[in-house]
């Protein structure tokens, strides 16, 4: 059981590329890639807030425990 990041799913739903999301949330592509590939160890609330605002979604849409 682990926390899974469904960022690519939400990005596909909102038809947003990684570059666009990177510009909107002010994160580097490298960091977004780390998040997308599930290698991140932790996420700041400020980052989660920025991603949810950019993708117009809830934290539960991006983070899943399975």
């Amino acid at each position, binding site marked *: 059981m682990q926390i899974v990041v469904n960022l690519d799913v939400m990005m596909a739903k909102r038809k947003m590329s990684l570059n666009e999301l990177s510009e909107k949330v002010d*994160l580097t592509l490298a*960091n*977004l890639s*780390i*998040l997308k590939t599930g*290698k*991140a*160890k*932790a*996420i*700041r609330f400020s*980052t989660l807030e920025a991603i949810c605002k950019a993708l117009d979604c809830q934290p539960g849409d991006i983070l899943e425990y399975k």
Partner: protein
Amino acid sequence: MKTKTERILSATQVVMWIIFIGLCIQTGATVISYCVSFYNPEAAKNLYMGLNFSELRQYDIGQYQALVFFVVALGTMKAYIAYLTIKIFKEINLSQPFSMEVAKLIQKISQAAFIAGLVALIAYGYIESLHNDGLKVNYNWPAGEFLLLAGVVFTIARVFKKGVELQSEHELTI
């Protein structure tokens, strides 16, 4: 423009190189004097900087060899510790100082200091047995100091390893 820390580290690196070279010269000179003392017993009067084991050499060459072995072993361990410290300066990256390589080097230093302490302790016991035989051998065996150094550096190594974990976690915090 170098920061104060970088300047201090650069100066310390130079000092460590001087210490390392000095210890190599000391140990090497002792070995050479020991080899010469086989053909010329007078060499045992001054193995290095006044180190006089001539009385022991006359008493028993086997015990003389054993004592010189301890001296050379301790000198080698000290030089090795200096070498490991110099390696830290080469490995460390001040923007991300907590790396596994540096943590391993610090652990190696504590292990080397512990071994040096044990060697010094055994040599001290050996010298005491020679004193009981009526032989006077003057040499300073800093066993306690090395064991203390080993303990302190071991503690620092554990804390540093925790620092590596925290840094790694911080790097993967988005």
